[in-house]
């Protein structure tokens, strides 16, 4: 049963992983970090990643269609699963962690583009986010 550190270390074992962090997007606080930080400063990287995560999570355009038949969405259900940002030399995968208590937390994985496998990272990160909070 993984804790925060085990989860981040597991993310770092993905090919091309340069850094991983668990961040609260309301406050911009990094609850845990492993490896390098994009831009060099852990606190700044967390605040900047929190901005884009919050934006994506709150925009109605990115939310799935409401099913009138389905019961009202629970608090834990997140409108967005993940976010991928790519640039010339790296990928950033932001995976939202659905927690039943009042959290607004996501995993941020930074991958070197040359070695990273985006599809694999996305799937693994989803599994990790789930295992982190589910027994």
């Amino acid at each position, binding site marked *: *049963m*993984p*804790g*925060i550190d085990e*989860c981040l270390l597991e993310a770092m074992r993905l090919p091309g992983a340069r850094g991983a962090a*668990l961040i*609260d997007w*309301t*406050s*911009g*606080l990094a*609850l845990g970090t492993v490896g390098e930080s994009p831009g060099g*400063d852990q*606190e*700044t990287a967390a*605040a*900047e990643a*929190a*901005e884009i995560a919050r934006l994506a999570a*709150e925009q*109605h355009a990115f939310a799935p269609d409401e099913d009138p038949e389905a019961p009202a*969405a629970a*608090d*834990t259900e997140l409108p967005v699963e993940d976010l991928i940002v790519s640039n010339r030399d790296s990928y950033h995968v932001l995976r939202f*962690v659905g*927690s*039943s*208590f*009042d*959290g*607004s*937390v996501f995993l941020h994985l930074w991958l070197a583009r040359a070695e990273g496998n985006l599809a694999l990272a996305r799937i693994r990160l989803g599994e990790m986010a789930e*295992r*982190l*909070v*589910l*027994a």
Partner: protein
Amino acid sequence: MTVVRTTEPPRLPVRDKAAARARGWGGVSPMLTRLAAERATGVLVREHGTLHLAEGLVVQAESRHAPGLGALLTAHGTLAPEAWHQAVNEAADHHRVGRHLVDAGHLPLGALELCHLAALYDAAYFVLAPSSTPPRFRYGPVHWLGSVRPVPVEALERETLRRRDVLHRIWPHPGMDGIPLARTHLPGTPALTRRQLAVLELVDGVRTATDIARELGHLAFHTLVDVRRLTAAGVVTTAAPARGQSPPGGTRTTPDRGQSPPPPDQPPADPGQPPGRGRPPQGRGQPRRPETDGADGYAPPVPAEPLPPDPHITLLKRLRDALEAL
């Protein structure tokens, strides 16, 4: 063309670490800095709550303004209330309630750590708010929860200061955190998030932000963010102030500057005004903010007038801080 109006909150601030180091301490509690240096174990009691230390690290924070770990875990069904009570009864004497919950299979370690850290930083924000009473420290055993994920004092103080900046940037009105809130009922409500709608439903002219957090089982600081954003959007305003109630949360960023005068641009309504009569903020949806969004990414909240209301009180507070620092 449909125009969806949302109020964009300002950028999250980042503290200038070099400046903090140059000062030599976090600027929150000199006593706490000293206790961390001597690796003390015990309880720091401040006006708005307590911090529990183990070997100089913060292992738990409790404040009446923030929901506790038990409340957060049980409010949304993460943990059955019986399981929580059982763990507290069985393991509190051995100071390992957290470990007991995980070992008994009630809670994954990740969920416990996440919730614990969230609750700790949440309560610490209020505990480390400027106080009018001197802090006390009792050396003693570690907290009954046990050590789940201890936080260094420096990290906690820095985050607390940053959180004050987060709120100040959204809507600069430090006093509003302890004041009953009311709806403005103005036409043209901007698009709100699900969390904001949940908060808005409980705004009734009586409840304060922390009351709403408690009822929803939400983190108190996160609710303060929701409320400030709703205020900035012109949806919520402060109702008449409750007498004898001291507002929690940071009223000032530094303890030696005394009371904060109102921000340069007045928030929608004076706390003294009756509910429902508040002015909407200028340019609804995009209210003016004071010059805090500096190009360097961080600028401390500066009071409009440098002079605090009573120089005697300021002098006494500075004396107290200096004595505390000895």
